[in-house]
């Protein structure tokens, strides 16, 4: 079997182990026998532990895996269609746009919107708006400028939406502000089964879409003109990918708050393992993204137990070294 076939299988096994660890480990004290019994829904299992494992930890772990996989997928798509190895939903302002829209919705819109489908949809619209603004700032006469200009435009738009979020929090009702602040820190705590439909649906939809477009995405790596010469409808492909990325970023923010760097770093890790062809890159990035976020979320729960660290904080600490390596590689290659 080739390396390209073995590695995704291996990472998938690691993901399943990490997800099981995410379900088994936490602040609640319990024996291993009880934990396994609770997971198997055995009669002898303590009822409270069953509730913790099935109603608290399991939806949380699945949500984090879907968000991690989705953000990594978004990173792959952005880096390919923008020809920019630094592209990522966080650096390009999508996450900030989504969070400003979501915070605005939590503070100003009727509570039933926040508790139903409202937040993911509003966060998606915020991500679309931020992405459109970043692209508008990065283009001259319909041509996207250099990768670094695009990133700078993303940082500018990101700062603008962060200021808007701060303004919303400053003028908002103190009780609602407290809830929005906790959510903004980036945490999957409190995620329940009903919260999984949005990230699950978005992830499945974009995964299928990306895999069916894998050949066209490969052609885009050769440049827009070469892709056109190969018969790829580049404009249409780009719009579809932009919508997919905004959907994933919006839903990710609505589910766990702002989580940076997964979309930037994981696709590069996956490329090192299986190369740049999207048929292999897309599934591996999705699995690897899920693995990274599940592990970080688990560490967030156990490093300072019984206190819980925000997801974004620990992720940024782990992301810094690979980020520096990527920057150095990018400087060499472009």
């Amino acid at each position, binding site marked *: 079997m080739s390396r390209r076939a073995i590695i995704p299988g291996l990472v998938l096994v690691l993901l399943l182990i990490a997800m099981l660890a995410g379900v088994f480990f936490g602040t609640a004290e319990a024996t291993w026998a009880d934990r396994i019994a609770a997971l198997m829904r055995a009669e002898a299992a303590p009822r409270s532990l069953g509730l913790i494992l099935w109603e608290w930890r399991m939806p949380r772990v699945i949500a984090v895996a879907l968000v991690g996989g989705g953000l990594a997928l978004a990173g792959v798509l952005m*880096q390919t269609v923008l020809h*920019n190895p630094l592209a990522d939903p966080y650096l390009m302002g999508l996450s900030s746009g989504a969070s400003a829209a979501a915070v605005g919705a939590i503070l100003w819109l009727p509570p039933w919107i926040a508790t139903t489908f409202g937040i993911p949809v509003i966060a998606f619209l915020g991500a679309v708006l931020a992405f459109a603004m970043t692209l508008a700032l990065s283009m001259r006469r319909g041509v996207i400028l250099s990768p670094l200009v695009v990133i700078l435009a993303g940082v500018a738009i990101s700062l603008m939406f962060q200021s808007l979020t701060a303004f919303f929090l400053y003028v908002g009702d103190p009780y609602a502000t407290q809830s929005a602040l906790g959510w903004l820190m980036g945490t999957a705590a409190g995620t329940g089964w009903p919260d999984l439909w949005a990230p699950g649906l978005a992830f499945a939809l974009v995964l299928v879409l990306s895999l069916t477009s894998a050949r066209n995405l490969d052609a*885009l790596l*050769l440049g827009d003109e070469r892709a*056109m010469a190969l*018969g790829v409808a580049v404009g249409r492909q780009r719009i579809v990918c932009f919508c997919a990325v905004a959907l994933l970023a919006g839903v990710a923010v609505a589910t766990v708050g702002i989580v940076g760097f997964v979309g930037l770093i994981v696709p590069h890790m996956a490329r090192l393992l299986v190369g740049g062809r999207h048929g292999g890159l897309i599934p591996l990035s999705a699995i690897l993204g899920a693995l990274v976020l599940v592990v970080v979320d688990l560490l967030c729960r156990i490093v300072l137990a019984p206190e819980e660290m925000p997801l974004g904080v620990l992720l940024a600490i782990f992301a810094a070294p690979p980020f520096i390596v990527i920057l150095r590689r990018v400087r060499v*290659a472009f």
Partner: protein
Amino acid sequence: MPSDPAIEITDLHVTLGGAPRVAGFSLNVAEGQFHGLLGPNGAGKTTVLRSLYRAQRIDAGELRIAGRAIHDWPQSDWAGTVGALVQEGGTFQGLSVRDVIEIGMMGLPLSGPERAARIDAALAQAGLSDRSDTEAARISGGERQRTHIAQLLARGPQVFLLDEPSNHLDLCYQLILLDEIKRRRATVLATFHDLTLAARYCDLVTLMKDGRAHATGRPADVLTRDNIRSVFRVDGWLENGAMRIEAAI
């Protein structure tokens, strides 16, 4: 008896940045013919090729390849019929030289072994067999150009659209790769800055100036002192198959 035209360009008009870049250009290239587009910078050569491989929006005109309007080709048939050598960079993130060649074969109905055999042959022709697994983002400009030409050779299209095929290539590979394309007797429309190379390979050439065809015919008939002076503002002419250049005017 002349063959049917494989490439038909009728009254093409293209505007770029508000200025006309191609203004009423027409050309027919017969099947199996090697046709050169020559002219100074800004004459519209690349714009004609970009229009043909569907990367350039045109203002007016009709473009047909193998008898079919270029926008009527479905993606699968197009990739097997038309091969374009493009002067534009991609990121090649994570791709090996072999990957680049294989991506160019998308849509071709080939079995795995056939595909691999074609890629190996193209790698050998382009002198890249030992670079097959090298990262495409890290090879030299000449090796990159050879990779893209190898991609076309592996694909084996009926019509080659080549924008500056000799760019970045050393003398040896210019001859090896253009000889190979010529040997295939496919239809070729290629732009050249090197007029000696154009005279060596082209059955016919078109000299372009200000987006129009200034002269079309056999290289010896077109690359005359008067035409070279008028189009390139250079005192030069074709002599025994090689360009002799005296001075800029």
